[in-house]
């Protein structure tokens, strides 16, 4: 075992800190404070993505040949740590953590050359088109059809839970190309290089938190070149499974959870408990905060073990363990936040939450975000494979 501190690392930390202290615009900082989802305010997050890219730091986990900074595991943790300490908004995951790594692995050289630069730089935003109204957890029963026609596919059907599709200029998606055999067969993985295609229509869906984060996308005779297929026709299921691996693991999520907890802790120091003194001084709050501190710590340890090459990362249950732990911690932290703000969480402040809004916020920063964050995070145990599906998968690895 080895966890010795390292002087070079401290130099690196100073360099990161200096940049993160100076590079983000006030709007980007504000966007960070007003992030109530995995998906922060779109314009500011993308602007920040481009600033980070200019410094070469937009994709800490990417290999050097594709534009990654070539950092060690420790450096990546230091970066995530300093990033989160400043409450900066996370970059959107779809490009950097999902379709990007997938294209590196399974894309053609042409696809890589065409698409990776825009993902790295933040020119492009990709939405994910997997779920359909009839196919949620049971993804394999999707029915949006792609029929070959000349060099193209012709698409008909609809997709739902396409995050920020109304902002997206690109999309990766699963379509049905065959009704033969098992329903997992006959699925194909496609790239859409634009969203303003004839016959493609996007309808935003308002969420519980009042934000149009998710969308429905309708396809009526939409033409997509077959060259934008990833993997073989009818082999999209295994392509998607490969992608899930990237989605469910491998990055440093714990610094963000820790940051959320610090926000709650700091707000508690300025909140009366109702029993005399502040919430921070209240033993009940301390115990509950302490429990989440301990849980976040264990999750951080789990992440560090995995990232540093401990065998846990090769456990077939690893991606599911990671998803369940991180999503349920997110929810528990969000509940603590709503407890801290109490009554002040009740005003619906969806207007004031917008970056640059004229609306006067009621209460402090936490009062503004606690309830929408809580409501939004109810989705973390639903998307990317419900936690029920994840537990099924974990249990399967325990069967002898």
């Amino acid at each position, binding site marked *: 075992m080895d966890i010795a501190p390292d002087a070079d690392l401290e130099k690196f930390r100073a360099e990161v800190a200096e940049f993160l202290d100076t590079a983000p615009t006030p709007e980007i900082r504000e966007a960070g404070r007003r992030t109530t989802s995995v998906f922060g305010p779109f314009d500011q997050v993308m602007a920040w993505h481009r600033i980070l890219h200019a410094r070469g730091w937009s994709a800490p986990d990417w290999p050097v040949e594709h534009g990654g900074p070539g950092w060690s595991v420790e450096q990546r943790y230091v970066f995530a740590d300093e990033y989160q300490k400043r409450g900066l908004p996370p970059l959107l995951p779809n490009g950097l953590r999902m379709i990007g790594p997938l294209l590196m692995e399974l894309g053609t050289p042409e696809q890589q050359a065409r698409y990776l630069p825009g993902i790295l730089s933040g020119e492009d935003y990709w939405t994910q088109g997997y*779920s359909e109204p009839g196919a*949620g*957890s*049971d993804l394999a*029963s999707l029915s949006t059809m792609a029929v070959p026609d000349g060099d193209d596919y012709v698409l008909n059907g609809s997709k*739902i*839970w396409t995050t920020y599709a109304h902002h997206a200029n690109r999309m990766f998606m699963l379509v049905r190309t065959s009704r033969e055999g098992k329903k997992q067969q006959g699925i194909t993985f496609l790239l859409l290089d634009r969203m303003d295609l004839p016959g493609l229509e996007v309808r935003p*869906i*308002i*969420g*519980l938190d*009042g934000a149009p984060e*998710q969308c429905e996308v309708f396809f009526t005779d939409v033409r997509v070149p077959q060259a934008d297929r990833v993997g073989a026709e009818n082999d999209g299921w295994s392509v998607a499974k490969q992608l899930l691996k990237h989605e469910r693991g491998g990055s440093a999520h714990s610094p963000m959870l820790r940051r959320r907890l610090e926000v709650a802790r700091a707000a508690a120091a300025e*909140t*009366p*408990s*109702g*029993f005399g003194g502040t*919430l921070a001084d209240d033993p*009940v709050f301390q115990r509950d905060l302490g429990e989440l501190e301990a849980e976040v710590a264990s999750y951080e340890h789990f992440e560090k073990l995995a990232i540093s090459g401990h065998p846990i990362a090769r456990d077939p249950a690893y991606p599911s363990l990671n998803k369940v732990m991180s999503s349920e911690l997110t929810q528990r932290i969000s509940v603590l936040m*709503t*407890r801290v*703000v*109490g*009554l*002040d*969480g*009740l*005003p*619906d*402040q969806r207007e004031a939450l917008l970056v640059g809004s004229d609306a*006067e916020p*009621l209460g402090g920063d936490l009062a503004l975000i606690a*309830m929408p964050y809580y*409501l939004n995070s*109810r*989705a973390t*145990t*639903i*998307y990317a494979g*419900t936690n*029920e599906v994840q*537990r099924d998968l974990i249990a399967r690895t325990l069967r002898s």
Partner: protein
Amino acid sequence: MDFTFTEEQTLLRDSVVRALQRDYSFEARQSIVRSGTGWSPDVWARLVELGLTALPFPEDVGGLGGSVVDVVAVAEVFGEHLLVEPYDASIVLAGGVLAAVGRKDELERIASGEAIGALAHEEGRGTPDPSLVTTKAERSADGYALTGEKRLVLHGADADVLVVSARLDAGLALFLVDASAPVATRFTTVDGRRAAHLRFDGAPGTLLAADAEPLLRGVLDRAIVVLAAEAVGAMGGLLRRTAEYASTREQFGVPIGSFQTVAHRLADMKIAYVAARSTLLHTTALAEAGRLAPQDVAVLKAQVGRLGRRVGESAIQTHGGVGMTDELPIGHLHKRVLAVDAMFGGTDHHLRRLGAPRSPAATG
């Protein structure tokens, strides 16, 4: 012992169900929430017609002399239908104070539905307890002047009749204040009600009652019973809708309710609902018999908050993605439960009152 509604109560309740089913579909309710006023005078008129605004008041002010059981019977229905009209604010809270102090004029106008009342009492997280109120009343040349801030006053900026609690000398007093006197910050709550923060800056007030802490506690206790009834109604809606969804929504070729974890989650929702509703009915019976003790109210408020949250979160999880949208009642029902939990002392506040050492006399 009897914890059932009478035939009359059941009839009244059924009439409210019918009226709301007709005039208060979820879509209609959503347009009302999005409207400028945030609640519907037409629906209000319908409630007046049904006698609901007059329900709990004495006959000499035009009331029907109904009991807390009557109000609970209809409040469950209000909760399931996510009512946003000012029933709690005007009838239960402000009306409750005015009835207790015997202000006939205001009461008549409130019972008839022509005036809307509001009670400005809570001051935010620090003051779930009346003894912690810091708004101050000072004697002035022509009466009293009130200074302080009240938070999340239900319909606080819509009211014609505004009742305000404030510290007067060593005690807590209740005042009538001109509804236009405070600086109001209006907003909609997450569960679709209109409310306001009110700042009083030497606002002139008419004394309703000095040393009114016991009186106010009584009103708040009964209001908590009614709010709890709304929450239990919402829980019932969540359970019913989720059970239906689980029976009809198919994934992997079978209804999702046939997955044992979904089935067991439904069972847990039912257990929570039954526990909360049992406590609601028992506590209502105690209130009716004039035997409501502080710890009974604490049990009710805490159980509704805790169990309601669990039911709502389970409903969303079972619905999956669609449960996360503004387009289904599920999330709104959950937000109603959360709002009830946050008002008048949250779960932890009440649990700690229950767990605190008791004087031997209070044991039993």
